[in-house]
């Protein structure tokens, strides 16, 4: 369970080293991912949390090289996947990685499926293209895949069009498509945000079950701390394009070491809460085009000092497998204690 330190368990499946994503526009340049480094271990579930605009989705898309350039400019020391640097692959090699090694599912299943194709054909397409299956064979494999993701009587539903399915079923079909290539890493970009709560649970349970069966690594991007807490081994907290805290799930909840993480935790509604109102983080996320050199969270932080704004605050270790980009992790801990 506690496999958050890459060195302790052998090589990482995906090692992002010093990734910078910049969007250049007329209103100035926005740095959406600011020198991110991150390891994803084989078979683990990694959660990425942060509010809208913190660069979570951009990170996933940058790893898969899906961002259009211009306006996006991506550079990195390396993005190593299984011994290969994704940043240096040519288009054909990258296509093979995308189809078979790394899969991604998106927020809105209603728009992730092509509206003019029968669902079965869409799920079968990667099988036929990448595995060279014949039509009949691919159809049988598609029915098996749809059954595996929990579509009832898939042999009857395989010729349906997307509009005939509900959002939850469509997300299952999207997951089936992603599984077709037997990926070793699945990037799930807010896979449950567009679904209602009961379906959310089912889809998350499905993803975790599939992950256990196939031993693939799962990256779950969400702005919902609750979802992440239930499912992930490790959590990465992002703010304004930077990683502000990285730790195992119990560490994050028991000993948060960054005031932003603490703010996120306090804003989770609880059934046993004594306080009548949820606390919120004061202020707005900063304009990414006009970031200062210091900590991006300083303006909203009750612990901020002039040192916070003076220089870049790097991610540093505050415990085994636990890193935080705060100058005063002890004070955060004290604040968290005072809270409870």
């Amino acid at each position: 369970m506690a496999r958050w330190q890459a060195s302790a368990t052998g090589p990482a499946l995906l090692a992002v080293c010093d990734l910078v994503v910049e969007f250049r526009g007329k209103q100035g340049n926005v740095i959406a991912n600011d020198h991110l480094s991150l390891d994803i271990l084989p078979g683990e579930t990694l959660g990425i949390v942060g509010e809208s605009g913190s660069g979570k989705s951009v990170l996933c898309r940058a790893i898969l090289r899906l961002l259009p350039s211009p306006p996006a400019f991506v550079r990195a020391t390396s993005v190593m996947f299984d011994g290969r640097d994704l940043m240096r692959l040519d288009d054909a090699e990258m296509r093979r990685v995308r189809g078979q090694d790394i899969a991604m599912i998106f927020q809105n299943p209603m728009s992730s499926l092509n509206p003019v194709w029968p669902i079965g054909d869409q799920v079968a397409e990667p099988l036929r293209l990448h595995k060279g299956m014949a039509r009949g064979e691919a159809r049988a494999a598609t029915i098996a895949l749809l059954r595996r993701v929990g579509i009832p009587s898939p042999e009857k539903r395989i010729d349906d069009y997307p509009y005939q399915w509900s959002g939850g079923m469509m997300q299952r079909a999207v997951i089936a498509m992603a599984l077709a290539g037997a990926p070793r890493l699945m990037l799930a970009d807010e896979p449950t945000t567009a679904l209602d709560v009961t379906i959310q649970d089912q889809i998350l349970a499905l993803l975790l079950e599939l992950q256990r069966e196939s031993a693939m690594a799962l990256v779950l991007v969400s702005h919902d701390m609750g979802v992440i807490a239930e499912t992930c081994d490790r959590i990465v907290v992002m703010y304004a394009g930077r990683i502000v805290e990285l730790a195992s799930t119990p560490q994050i909840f028991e000993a948060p070491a960054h005031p932003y993480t603490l703010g996120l935790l306090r804003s989770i509604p609880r059934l046993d809460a004594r306080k009548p109102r949820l606390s919120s983080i004061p202020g707005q996320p900063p304009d990414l085009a006009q970031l200062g050199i210091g900590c991006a969270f300083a303006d909203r932080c009750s612990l901020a000092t002039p040192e916070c704004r003076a220089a870049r605050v790097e991610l540093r270790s505050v415990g085994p497998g636990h890193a935080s980009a705060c100058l005063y992790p002890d004070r955060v801990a004290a604040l968290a204690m005072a809270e409870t």
Partner: protein
Amino acid sequence: MASALPTARNGLFATIGAEIRSWSPTLKIGTAIMGIILFGAVFAPWVAPYDPYFQNFAATLQPPGPAHLFGTDNLGRDIFSRVLYGARIDLQIGLITTYVPMSYGMLLGAYSGYIGGRVDAVVMRILDTAMAFPFLVLIIVILAILGPGVQNIYISVFLVAWTMYARLARAEMMVERTKDYITAARVLGFPTNRIILRHGLPNVINSSIVFSMSDFVLNILLVSGLSFLGLGIQPPIPEWGAMISEGKDFILQAWWISTMPGFVVVLTGTALSLIGDGLAQRLGERHHTLV
């Protein structure tokens, strides 16, 4: 819309029947008229009562009646038969001048919209150049240089007519390419050609199909107009515009020579416009025909 679509399991005829029942009256009427005209064109040798070139000098300038449904012209030829044979020519030219430019215009636009960047800029500048020519002047110049005839009409139309389809397909593709299903196709590692042709194109084709109905009408009018001016199909070939032109000298004694082919041109135009409007409704509310 959801309830109108068949489940596609109870046979082809049931499917077609359900599809037709879901059509609007506009689409039904347009399709019916066009069906009759197409039937007459395809089966002209069996439907037409006379040979379109047969001159019967005993029966010149006969008014419409039971023997000659649309009357006869100054050479005693049966106008009804000539209109039927004319439909073959006009519809064929209309089809070619509409759908050949549509196919490559749409492809060009789809690629241009999807790839963007420099490719897009180059295609758009070529397109602007083609659009900047006054179309009728261009076509008359080309016909004046190369001489009248169908082939030269094709050449001039092919130079210009693709631009609208390229514009339409490009604009829609620029919207489609940002949608998740295209990104999903990229994530699944599909080649760019496959994404554009199999995933993108089916989603951008609707507006081009609707526009093609208006374009079809305009192209039939263009061919008739050019033939009327003597730049297109030459007599004695039964072409609608050429027939109207032949009848204009007799318009006071025998109005039917010009009027009957003119009426069929109008009927065809109306039917195609109705189909265009009906399809626009059927395929989505956004599109509107120009005619």
